[in-house]
């Protein structure tokens, strides 16, 4: 299936492993594929930038869903950034996120579904190649996915994301 992926989409899938490992995940989830898709230079990154969301904000939202919520902690006066800096000074980079020394290899069913949906989105949009824009469209297509929940936690509606991908494609054309 990967032969139809553009280089940036391939890079995203490869990078998803590192994102999952850095966030202490046991397996690669759809949210890590999404995050990786936005980290690499491509349509997904342009689309979310157009909506005012950068990759770091997305990473923060993924962490929040897994129990470390910067904003919620700030609301009770705990500066997670300061805690992270102290902990990493003592225990090394990534310590607070329980980062794994070896990145996971297995995909969650959720992540597999996202890749399948990206293929379907490519067929639907009548494009021969699957790029990061299709990965982003797939994220909002899967109703129960962690990727969609992460986007939704940032206040991004499915329609807003779809429109932004359309705009980014039009610009790239």
């Amino acid at each position, binding site marked *: 299936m990967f032969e139809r992926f553009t280089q940036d989409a391939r890079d995203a899938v490869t990078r998803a492993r590192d994102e999952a490992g850095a966030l202490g995940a046991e397996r690669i989830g759809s949210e890590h594929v999404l995050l990786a898709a936005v980290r690499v230079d491509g349509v997904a990154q342009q689309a979310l930038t157009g909506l005012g969301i950068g990759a770091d904000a997305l990473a923060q939202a993924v962490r*929040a869903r897994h*129990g*470390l*919520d910067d904003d*919620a902690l700030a*609301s*009770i006066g*705990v500066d997670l950034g300061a805690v992270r800096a102290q902990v990493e000074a003592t225990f090394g980079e990534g310590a607070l996120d329980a980062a794994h020394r070896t990145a996971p290899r297995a995909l969650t069913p959720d992540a597999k579904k996202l890749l399948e949906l990206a293929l379907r989105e490519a067929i639907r949009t009548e494009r021969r190649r699957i790029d990061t824009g299709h990965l982003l469209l797939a994220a909002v297509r899967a109703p129960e996915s962690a990727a969609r929940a992460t986007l939704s936690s940032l206040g991004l509606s499915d329609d807003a994301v779809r429109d932004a991908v359309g705009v980014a494609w039009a610009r790239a054309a």
Partner: protein
Amino acid sequence: MTGTDTLLTAAGAAEPAEGLRAVRSLRTLADRLEALQVERARRQGWSWQQIADCLGVTRQAVHKKYGKTTGRVVP
């Protein structure tokens, strides 16, 4: 929203969702810090009893939780 407003909102439970997320995040934070500190103490040769005393729990509790992951760490 200013920091003070946010604090009052969360503390006053006007926004339970944010307050509850803060509680969950504190728990996660405490769990991660505990795991890091226990591992370091074991590496430095601390006994399970010494660690348990510091954490205010029983030796069995701390050993059950971390014995498999950090018990056999070679310093």
